[in-house]
């Protein structure tokens, strides 16, 4: 990177991490129940107030979402897929910072990834892809060497450009396991087909 070429690579990497964390924090939301119990995290998928999270996170059909910089919103669960463990929440907001979506297919064992979430405040963890599980050639789960906590559920797994490659869903044998962005796309496609969601602007914002 030209602006940082005079820095040592380690220092430049640190600065980039700072910038990356700020970017990801902008589209990561905290999800709580109406009585204030923290449930997990979510990812702003569309600037018009669509948030993707895990199905197991939305135990409350009217959760409260805190969107960094934009305040608190009452959410409405508009699509729920227990099999894929994904849910889509709609909030009455516009002009939000939506997450750029990455390509889970480009990940390989050893690729650097970050996870951000709200276990207790915002927590960032850095690691590498441990393995990618595929079904019919499509990435389904991304196991990553990142230290997750329960509050990370529904939060983003991010590549080095800040793009979401997965939704963190569980911890298996110490490994963080995320639902691949390819699966999220299929889930959103199904939600759109079923008429559960309608968009005023394309989802590909």
């Amino acid at each position: 990177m030209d602006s940082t070429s005079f820095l040592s690579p380690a220092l430049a990497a640190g600065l980039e991490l700072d910038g990356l964390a700020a970017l990801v924090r902008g589209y990561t939301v905290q999800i709580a129940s109406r009585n204030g119990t923290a449930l997990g995290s979510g990812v702003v998928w569309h600037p018009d107030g669509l948030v993707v999270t895990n199905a197991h996170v939305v135990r409350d059909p009217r959760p409260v979402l805190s969107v960094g910089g934009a305040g608190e919103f009452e959410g409405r669960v508009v699509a729920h897929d227990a099999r894929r463990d994904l849910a889509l929440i709609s909030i009455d907001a516009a002009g939000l910072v939506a997450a750029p979506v990455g390509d889970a297919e480009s990940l390989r064992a050893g690729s650097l990834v970050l996870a951000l979430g709200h276990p207790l405040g915002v927590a960032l963890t850095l690691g590498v892809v441990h393995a990618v599980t595929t079904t019919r050639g499509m990435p389904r789960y991304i196991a990553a060497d990142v230290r997750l906590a329960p509050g990370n559920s529904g939060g983003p797994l991010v590549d080095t450009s800040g793009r979401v490659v997965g939704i963190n869903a569980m911890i298996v044998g110490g490994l963080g396991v995320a639902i691949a962005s390819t699966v999220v796309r299929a889930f959103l496609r199904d939600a759109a087909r079923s008429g559960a969601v309608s968009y005023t602007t394309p989802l590909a914002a």
Partner: protein
Amino acid sequence: MSASNPASTPASTPAPTTPSVLQSLSDDLAAAVAKASHSLVAIHARRRIPSTGVIWRPGIVVTAHHTIQREERITVTLADGTSVGATLAGRDPTTDIAVLRLNSEVGVPIERAATGAARVGQLVLALGMPGPAVTAALGVVSATGGEWRTWHGGRIDQFIRLDLAIYDGFSGGAAIDASGRMVGLNSSGLARASAMTIPLATVERVAEQLLTSGRVRRGYIGLGVQPVRLPAGVVAAHALPREVGLMVVSIEEGAPAHAAGISLGDVVVACAGEAVADPSELLAALTGDRVGTSVTLRVLRGGAPQDIAVTVGERQTRSDR
């Protein structure tokens, strides 16, 4: 765009055109994994999940001894997916190293880093292959040190501890540097809850012995000892080099020490001319090349030193450990 149009799903955001430092680091790490993974194998020699091994030479695989739970019907899956039968060339529980001979001289030997090149803070990846695909974990070298002995008495040429998480397949896998060269053979069996990697020098030495003789010979005299502080007067009177000796608390019936007349309560202060103040030092003095030869134990008996010659036997290793 309306909901009835499924084409409204998001496309991937293109990557920035200027590669960032993190992006190139990520690419380098993934490339290092891809390069080294050609030399990793999955070993089917235990129930649950396969363990990992590393191609050391064509047809030769090194792995962690404790992951090999059966010695017959071993098969190995190479990185390209082919399956090859293998036989156990030998195992050394003291260093947790085992060597397999594949039924054909196949496999790409792993590229190795320079011996002794591990530095604290250096990025390392632990690779495993507990299934068809290689897995990775990232960390740094957290500590290095000199030669040490495992709790089974094996000699490890350099102490290298890694700061990374241990997942399935860690043991028997390779620790590699950021350019994909092996720095050690990973084992979770050498220190509690700590990721240790066995340096290449040790792997080379032990693998060589296992391939030649099927075992690593170690001396045996049949003593159980306990460190004890020696009375200051005794140390001064006999100009002893150490203030601690090893009191004999058990003697195996018929063992070399028994035959040589060592008694319970004797305090061993030297073996073959080397002062010993810790059981590991006594173990260290009983090297494989001393098997069958006579060594002199200097013991304190009734406060007076005596030299007793003991013919060193060979330690039998339970192969099922």
